[in-house]
């Protein structure tokens, strides 16, 4: 680059603005960066935009959160509320709760900012979740993106941590109840639980330290980690380039789409304001977390309808589903003078542990089963990976059962059913729901694949019924154009990979396990239509169409 520039005459800007921008460009090299990034190609699909939604929500969170820090005081010192909300006037409360009420009622625009912040937090985690579901179901986590999938998982956990620490800050009754549950869960951990709880709360719950500590985590540590992870995540997106859905001219060696500059940059910038607009509209018109309803935290009362924000809901739901005793079997034992309460420990930590372990390990599990070491930049349509799709839906169903259990009381009151029955049904679904979801999803995926194959081979049904001379009725099928057909035939359908001996000629036990898993993954398969099959079917269809046409002619005589 320098060689070519020295060979030519030095660039002399003609205008004032030109000389100013040239001055800057010669020092920071902006045009080089722009040339490189401006030409980055992104494929266009609506499902690719959830990561963007999460990013924009996070930016909105940083901005609205900064506003809130100007007025929020994380002190747990006792005070008597003197603000303008009369139903709490002169009530004893913490300074943190009092300042949250002041933000809501006495700071201009404060309530709006609080609601923007909280709605943005809910949307942040929701869009992260949907983004991860999209990545999972399209197989975008495969090589070379396994590590970025893990970074995404870490981001999800960090987002939940950011949400929970923020939820607890106002020190209202609802969030205090939530903290009490966390305290209970921590205390249920064997041996170290009680010590950890005392360390975290600075003594017995609730103490006078926790709000200040959560505040530091919420505004400093967790957002910094999220920012770091976002940087790593986006860096890897640039390095790996974006994935694309299958289509004519798209393969693992290219990216078909539009360049970032200028259209995409403008679109993305506009999309930020759309997300901001939607959140602002929600914050202006819909209440979120009405802390004035809940009152100051006091360890004695617990309100009906006490739930965490949605992203912690599945843990709360698991706690609600866990029975304390089954017949005469108790889940709480005293061992060596220490209490082991499995009815808190199991539901609080095991389902979440299973979900995140499987989530983090899944790319490697599938890699090991398929022995597939190729790079994949073309996505799978979910139906073309039936077992993976079924595993995903089973996991999602399991999550949703626990999620629903967190609202079991509201399900009971709003559908006029017994709370006990809701709990029994959800307990049943906790075990059989994922199994049913797996079987049904896999069957649907295979059926859709068969339908695709049928359409690829014989064309689309036209609805035109023709009667043949000998009395038979047939429906005329119209062949697909090749762009549509490509989508239906351009995919891989791996066959089970039998156990193979290693370099010593021995089939190891691990390899046998892998082969069994491979059989389980791929034994039900629908192969895509091959060119030969297409050719044969096309000739046949053509024949049929001509025959039908001739018959028609003869009929019309």
């Amino acid at each position, binding site marked *: 680059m320098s060689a070519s520039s020295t060979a030519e005459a030095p660039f002399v800007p003609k205008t004032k603005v030109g000389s100013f921008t040239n001055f800057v460009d010669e020092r920071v090299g902006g045009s080089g960066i722009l040339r490189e990034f401006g030409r980055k190609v992104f494929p*266009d699909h609506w499902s690719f*935009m959830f990561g963007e*939604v999460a990013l924009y929500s996070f930016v909105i969170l940083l901005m609205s959160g900064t506003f809130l820090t100007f007025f929020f005081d994380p002190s747990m010192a006792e005070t008597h509320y003197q603000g303008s909300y009369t139903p*709490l006037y002169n009530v004893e409360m913490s300074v943190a709760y009092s300042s949250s009420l002041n933000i809501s009622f006495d700071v201009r625009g404060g309530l709006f900012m609080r609601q923007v912040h909280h709605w943005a937090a809910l*949307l942040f985690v929701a869009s992260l979740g949907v983004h991860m579901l999209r990545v999972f179901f399209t197989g975008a986590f495969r090589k070379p993106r396994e590590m970025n999938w893990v970074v995404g998982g870490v981001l999800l956990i960090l987002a939940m941590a950011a949400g929970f620490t923020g939820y607890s800050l106002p020190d209202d009754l609802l969030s205090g109840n939530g903290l009490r549950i966390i305290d209970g869960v921590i205390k249920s951990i064997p041996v170290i639980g009680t010590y950890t709880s005392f360390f975290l709360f600075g003594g017995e719950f609730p103490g006078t330290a926790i709000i200040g500590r959560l505040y530091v985590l919420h505004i400093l540590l967790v957002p910094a980690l999220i920012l770091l992870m976002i940087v790593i995540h986006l860096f890897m997106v640039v390095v790996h380039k974006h994935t694309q859905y299958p289509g004519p001219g798209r393969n693992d060696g290219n990216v078909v789409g539009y360049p970032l500059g200028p259209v995409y940059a403008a679109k993305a910038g506009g999309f930020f304001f759309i997300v901001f607009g939607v959140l602002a509209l929600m914050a202006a018109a819909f209440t979120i977390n009405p802390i004035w309803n809940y009152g100051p935290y*006091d360890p004695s009362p617990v309100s*009906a*309808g006490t739930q965490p924000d949605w992203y912690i809901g599945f843990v709360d739901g698991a706690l609600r589903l866990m029975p304390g005793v089954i017949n005469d079997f108790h889940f709480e034992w005293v061992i060596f003078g220490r209490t082991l309460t499995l009815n808190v420990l199991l539901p609080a930590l095991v389902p979440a542990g299973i979900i995140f372990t499987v989530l983090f390990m899944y790319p490697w599990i599938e890699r090991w089963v398929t022995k597939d070491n190729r790079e994949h930049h073309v996505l799978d349509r979910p139906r073309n990976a039936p077992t993976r799709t079924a595993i995903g839906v089973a996991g999602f169903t399991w999550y949703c059962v626990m999620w629903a259990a967190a609202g079991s009381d509201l399900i009971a009151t709003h559908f006029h059913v017994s*709370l006990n029955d809701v709990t029994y049904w959800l307990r049943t679904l906790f075990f059989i729901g994922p199994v049913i979801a797996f079987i049904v999803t896999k069957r649907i995926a295979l059926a859709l694949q068969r339908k695709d194959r049928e359409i690829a081979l014989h064309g689309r049904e036209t609805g035109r019924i023709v009667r043949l001379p000998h009395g038979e009725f047939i429906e005329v099928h119209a062949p697909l154009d090749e762009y549509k057909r490509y989508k239906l035939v351009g995919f891989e359908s791996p066959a089970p990979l039998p156990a193979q001996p290693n370099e010593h000629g021995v089939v190891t036990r691990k390899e046998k396990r892998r082969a069994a898993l491979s059989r389980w993954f791929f034994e039900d398969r629908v192969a895509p239509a091959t060119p030969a099959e297409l050719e044969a079917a096309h000739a046949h269809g053509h024949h049929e169409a001509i025959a039908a046409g001739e018959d028609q002619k003869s009929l019309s005589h």
Partner: protein
Amino acid sequence: MKALSQKRRHPLAAIALLLMGLLLTGGLYAVATTVNQAKASTTSFSASDVEEGGKLFAANCATCHGMGASGTQDGPSLVGVGAAAVDFQVGTGRMPMQMSGPQAQQKPAQFNAEQTKQLSAYVASLGAGPAIPEQNLLDGKGDAANGGELFRVNCAMCHNAAAAGGALTRGKFAPALAGVSPEHIYEAMVTGPQNMPVFSDSNVTPEDKRDIITFLKTIEANGSPGGADLGALGPVSEGLFVWVAGLGVIIAFTIWLTSRTS
């Protein structure tokens, strides 16, 4: 339970039952008279009210509650429940009950104010019990902040902190309190209808009850300062809203944004 049902034909069972019943009614009477001493005598009904109420009772209530309100296996005795209980149950339409179920459902009142008063008079004449509250306790001009604290400590665990109602076991529930009249709120506290406990005057004083009513009426009149309250049901309705409405609108926008080019 099985042991109990097997022994119910024991020769001494009747005597034991009688003794228990006497002790129970005696004890209840003593409690009712001491707790509500100040108010039991404040409301007076005319003799004709009692007489008309008796007729209404025989025609509409005695099927389950028995002649003389002495109770049958389908309904409890109403001796000593007081005028407040009748005014609440009949005034909110819970009684006469439409059908058996986990708890009596609210429905349009079946009797007018005059008839409700007569029924109350009749039942009050059977034995002393909580009376219909004085108007000065229902004016909603007490201390809302104190009422709020009492509400959170005593009521919110079933009725929800924003009085939006909540679930109880086996199909029972605590109803939402918006739109309930001050009389009925007060009467519910002193009589404990359905699964609600009794908050006697020694537990929550009449002034405290007035404060609770003031709190409920204040939050009802205040509305929701932050916009639509989504049922005041807390994080579940908020989560549902962000997933369905928030993400729904955003997905619509993403489809719009990507539809022009492909």
